[in-house]
């Protein structure tokens, strides 16, 4: 699974993009893998939304191996 990191999430992960082995599952399962690989994301988890293939993931949405997932910390445009 391709992961994109933005803003504080990129700072915490130390990268802007990564490949993460993920067999598929919900946001809970994905966060477990993300935090295993990037423990410094932990403080951001509560405020960071996940986007799947360019759209915010709905509650309960499932993520699959081929998805592009973006970590979206609180936005601050404008």
């Amino acid at each position, binding site marked *: 699974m391709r992961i*994109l990191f*933005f*803003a504080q999430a990129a700072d915490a992960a130390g990268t802007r993009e990564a490949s993460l082995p993920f067999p598929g599952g919900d946001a809970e399962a994905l966060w477990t893998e993300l935090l295993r690989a990037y423990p410094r994301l932990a403080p951001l988890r509560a405020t960071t939304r996940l*986007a799947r293939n*360019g*759209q*915010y993931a709905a509650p309960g949405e499932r993520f699959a191996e081929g998805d592009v997932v*973006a970590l*979206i*910390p609180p*936005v*601050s*445009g*404008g």
Partner: protein
Amino acid sequence: MVALLTEPIPRPYPVEALPQCGALAEFYGIVRGEEAGEPIRALCYEAYEPMARQMLKALAQELATKHGCHKVYVVHRLGEVPVGEAAIYLAALSPHRKAAFALLSDFMDRLKADIPIWKTRALPL
């Protein structure tokens, strides 16, 4: 009309007049000289560009329909934006002024809540 760009946002922005539209409302969000009480020389912005672009288009369409605006322009600058220059430009054309005013206000609220664009750094003076 949605654009993300790294150059200065033009003023005036080239907006096409429409014969039915008696109102053109515009907004420039300008980088201020202080951030968190400290003097700065610029702010840096980044975006998840394809998602931001697509969401801005959808938002412009949704709010144009909701308020009865005929045309919406939204431009966000990315990268380093010096103090005194605009990070965002928004314009709405509508038959009557209230629609255009309401759109600008709603659009900015939604943008600040949901569009994947970030102020990543303040560069000190």
